[in-house]
C-alpha cells in the first residue's frame, strides 16, 4: 500500500527528443577560466547560517555575492547531449570530470557531447566551446552520475571547475543558487540563474525552492561561496518541490564513479559452474566472462586475492569483493593443465 506521506511523484528533468546539433557547429572558441571569488567586506554569515537577511543593505550584499560567484559557476556549467536526451552538468576538476544526474547519461561508457556556453564576447556573440566526454559511473538509485571529458577543441588547457563542498554541513534556510539549461541548450538565452533556500537537507536528497524544469537535470546547486553542494535531479508538482542529489554522495563514491561502476547494479560474471565445483560449465555469449576469454572447462583458481576451490568460495569471493558492474577483477584459471591469468570486467545482472 502506498503511503503518500513518504512518497512524492517526481519527474526527471532531462529533455528527450532534442535534436543533436550538426557537426559543423563544432567550431567554437576557447573558454576562459575565471574563478575569482573575492573576500567580502561586512558580515555575510547569514548567507550560510540559514537566517533570512534583515536589511536592504544585506540584500545588496547578496546581489554582489551572486554576481561574484555566478561567473565562475557559469563557466563550469555545461550542457550534456546524449543521443536522445540532453541535460546539464558541472565540471568539478581541472582535468575535466563532470558531475550530473544518472538519468541524464543513462549508461556508463557512452559518448556525450558537452557544450560550454560562456557569456557574450566583445562582439555580443555567445562563446560556445564543444567537447566530447565519456560517461562513467552511475547510481540510478540516488540519481548520481559522472563523466570525463576526453576530447576538447582548441588548445589544451585546464577546465574551469567548481570545488565540491560538504553537503552534510548545509543548514535549512541556507541561501543557494541553481544554474542550468532548462528546456535544453539555448544559445541566445544562455544559462538560467535561480536563487532560493534549502528547505530540507538529508543524506539522499536536498530540497530547495529554486524552481527546476526539464533540461536542468544534472546542473549545479551552489552555496554562496560558489562551491557545489548538489546536482539537480527531479521535481514534484509544487513549485517548492525541487530535489537535488547531495554533493556528498559524489565525494563519497568518487572512485567508484570514476571507474564507471554501476553502483546500484547487481554483478554478473556470465558463467555457470558444474554442480558445486569451480569448473566452468557454461559461458554466456557476449557477457563478462566471454569477453574476458573464459572457456567452458576452465577451472577457476583465484579471483583477485581470493582462492577459489568450489562454488561456495566463488560466491563468497564475489560477495566479499563487493563487486559492482563494470569493476575489473583478476581471474586465474587452469586450462589444459596451464594456469592463465585474465582480466574480467564485471557485467550487470539482467542486462546484455
Amino acid at each position: 500500500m502506498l503511503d503518500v506521506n513518504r512518497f512524492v511523484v517526481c519527474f526527471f528533468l532531462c529533455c528527450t527528443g532534442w535534436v543533436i546539433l550538426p557537426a559543423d557547429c563544432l567550431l567554437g572558441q576557447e573558454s576562459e577560466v575565471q574563478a575569482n571569488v573575492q573576500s567580502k567586506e561586512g558580515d555575510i554569515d547569514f548567507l550560510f547560517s540559514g537566517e533570512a537577511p534583515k536589511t536592504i543593505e544585506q540584500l545588496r550584499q547578496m546581489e554582489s555575492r551572486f554576481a561574484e560567484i555566478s561567473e565562475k559557476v557559469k563557466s563550469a556549467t555545461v550542457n550534456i547531449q546524449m543521443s536522445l536526451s540532453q541535460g546539464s552538468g558541472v565540471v568539478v576538476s581541472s582535468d575535466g570530470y563532470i558531475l550530473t544526474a544518472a538519468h541524464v547519461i543513462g549508461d556508463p561508457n557512452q559518448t556525450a557531447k558537452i557544450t560550454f556556453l560562456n557569456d557574450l564576447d566583445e562582439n555580443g556573440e555567445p562563446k560556445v566551446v564543444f567537447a566530447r566526454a565519456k560517461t562513467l559511473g552511475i547510481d540510478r538509485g540516488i540519481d548520481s552520475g559522472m563523466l570525463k571529458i576526453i576530447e576538447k577543441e582548441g588548445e589544451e588547457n585546464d577546465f574551469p571547475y567548481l570545488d565540491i563542498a560538504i553537503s552534510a554541513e548545509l543548514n535549512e534556510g541556507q541561501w543557494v543558487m541553481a544554474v542550468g539549461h532548462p528546456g535544453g541548450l539555448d544559445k541566445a538565452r544562455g544559462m538560467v540563474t535561480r536563487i532560493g533556500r534549502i528547505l530540507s537537507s538529508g543524506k539522499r536528497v536536498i530540497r530547495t525552492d529554486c524552481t527546476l524544469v526539464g533540461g536542468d537535470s544534472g546542473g549545479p546547486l551552489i552555496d554562496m561561496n560558489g562551491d557545489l553542494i548538489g546536482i539537480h535531479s527531479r521535481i514534484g508538482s509544487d513549485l517548492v518541490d525541487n530535489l537535488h542529489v547531495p554533493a556528498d554522495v559524489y565525494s563519497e563514491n568518487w572512485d567508484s564513479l570514476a571507474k564507471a561502476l554501476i553502483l546500484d547494479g547487481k554483478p554478473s560474471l556470465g558463467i555457470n559452474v558444474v554442480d558445486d565445483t569451480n569448473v566452468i560449465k557454461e559461458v554466456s555469449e557476449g557477457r563478462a566472462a566471454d569477453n574476458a576469454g573464459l572457456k567452458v572447462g576452465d577451472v577457476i583458481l583465484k579471483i583477485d586475492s581470493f582462492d577459489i576451490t568450489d562454488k561456495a568460495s566463488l560466491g563468497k569471493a564475489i560477495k566479499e569483493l563487493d563487486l559492482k558492474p563494470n569493476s575489473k577483477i583478476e581471474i586465474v584459471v587452469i586450462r589444459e593443465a596451464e594456469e592463465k591469468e585474465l582480466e574480467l570486467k564485471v557485467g550487470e545482472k539482467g542486462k546484455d
Partner: protein
Amino acid sequence: MKKYIQLTPVIASLLLFLVATVTAQETTNGQSQEAPKQGETKSVEPSDQSDSKKSDGKEAEQEGEGKVKPSEKKSDQKKDQKKDAEDSETKSLAEKARTSFRNRFNTNKSQSVSKYSKQSDSFVSIFDSILGSVDASTVQVVSGTRQVALGTVVDADGLVLTKASELRGKLGVEMPDGKVLAAKVIGIDKPTDLALLKIEATDLPVGQWSNDPAPQTGRWLATPKAGGEGKATIGVVSVDAREIPPSKPFIGITMEDVEDNKGVRIKSVIPGSPADFADVWVNDVIFKIDDLEIKDIIGVRDAIGQYDVNDRVTLGIFRGEKEMELRLSLGEQDKLSPNSKRSNMQNSMGSVLSRRRKKFPMAFQHDSMLTSKTCGGPIVDLSGNIVGINIARAGRVSSLALPVNEIRDVIEDLKTGDKAPEKVNQAEIKSISQELTEMDEKYSHLPNKKTVLEQKYNQERARVEELNKSISDLKKRLKVIEEKKAVYGTDLKELKSQISTVEKTRQRLEADLEKLRIGSR
C-alpha cells in the same frame, strides 16, 4: 487530498514517454529509501489506487497535527541534528502532499510556504520598506468578479497599464481600498501585449519608474501585492533582457506527398488542433494555402513558416473530387504539439501559465513564482523603483518582465487612442466579419429549411401520437374483453362438468328404472 491521489496516475498516463517514478523519501526511523530507477515508468493499478487513497487521507490528517521541528545545528549533536533534518524533510513532504491539491487548483494563493522559503513572511517583510508607494499604485484587474491580472497605475488621472491577452468580458479595476471601478480598454500594443485601461478616477498614486538600464542577472526583484491581499513575490533576474522568440505556428496534421507534386494528403489530424476545429479530414489533399500553391510537404512547412501564431489562413483542398476551402487560425506548436506535452506538463506544474508567453521584443527573465493572474503589474528593484512590467508567467522556472525603458514610448502611443482595440484589430475584425457575412449568405436558406422540416416533423409526430393513443385505447378494450372471455370460459367449463355429472346420474337412474320394470332387480 483525494483529488491529489487521483490526479497522479492521470498525469503519469498523459505522458507516454515521460520517465516518472515514485520516489520514497527517507522515513523517520532512518530506513533507506527505495529510489528512482532509471527508465521505470510509474503505473498504478486501480485497486492499489483506491487502497492508498483511503489510508493516505487518514494518515495525512493525523500528520497534520505535527509541526516541523526547528533543527538548530550544534556541532556536538551531529547525529540528532541529522535525524531532525530528515524528520522535517519527511514532514514537509507530507505537508506538501496535503496542500498540493489546494495549490493545484488555487494557484492564485501562495504556494505552501516553508518558514525557510524565499516566500516566507520573515523574508518577504524585508521588502516592505521599499514597496510602500508601489503597493499603492498596483491594482487588480477584474473581469466580472474574477481577478484576471494585476495593473499598474501610470497616470494619476486614471490610466492603468496591464496585460492585454488576459482581458476578457466586462472589465473593472479594483483599487487598493477595495472599490471596483469600470474600466475601458483605450489601447493595446500587440508586440508587448500591453493594454491601457481608463478608469474614472483622479489623484491616483503613481510609482517611481527607474531610469536605469534593465536589471542584470542576480538582482533582487519584488512584485508588489495588489490591495490588501497576499504578499509580495520575491525573485531575482535569471537571464538578462533579451528578445523572446515566438512560438512556431502549428496546424496539427501529419501528411504525405501525392503524385505529380499536386499537393499533400492528410494522414492524420491531431485532435483539438486548428485543423481539427476547421474540420480537415484524413485523405483531404491540400493544394493551396492562401494564394500559394502547395506542391509537397516542404511547401506546406515553408508556407506555414511565413505566418505567425493566430494568423488566419485559408486551405484549398480536394476532398475526393470536390474542391473546397477551409479556414483556420494557426495554433502554437509549443502548446499543441504532442511532442511538447512532456515539457508543457513540467512547465505548468505548480502555477498557471499565461495565455501568451512567447514573442516579446525585449524582456528579462526572473524566478519569481508568479501565476498568469499576477502578471500585468509592476516589478521593482531594491530601491523600490519600477524596473519592469510583469508580462508573462512563461514556465515553471520563468517569469518575464518588460523593462521600463522599452515601454515608455509604448505607453505614450497607447494614450493617443490610435491603438484602440477596434483600430488595432481592424483587419482581423474585418476578416471575421466578412467571413460571418459570407456564412450568413451561404447558409441563409437554412433557417427556412429548418422551419419547413420542423413543421413536417411536428405533423408526423402528432399523427404518431394519435395512433399511439388509439393503440393504447384498443389495448385497454382488448384487455377487458379478454378478461370477460376468461370468465365465460371458466363458467362454461363448470357447466359442462355439471351437465356431464347430471347425464351420468340420469343414465344410472334409467338403468335402475329399467331393471325394476323387468323385475330383474
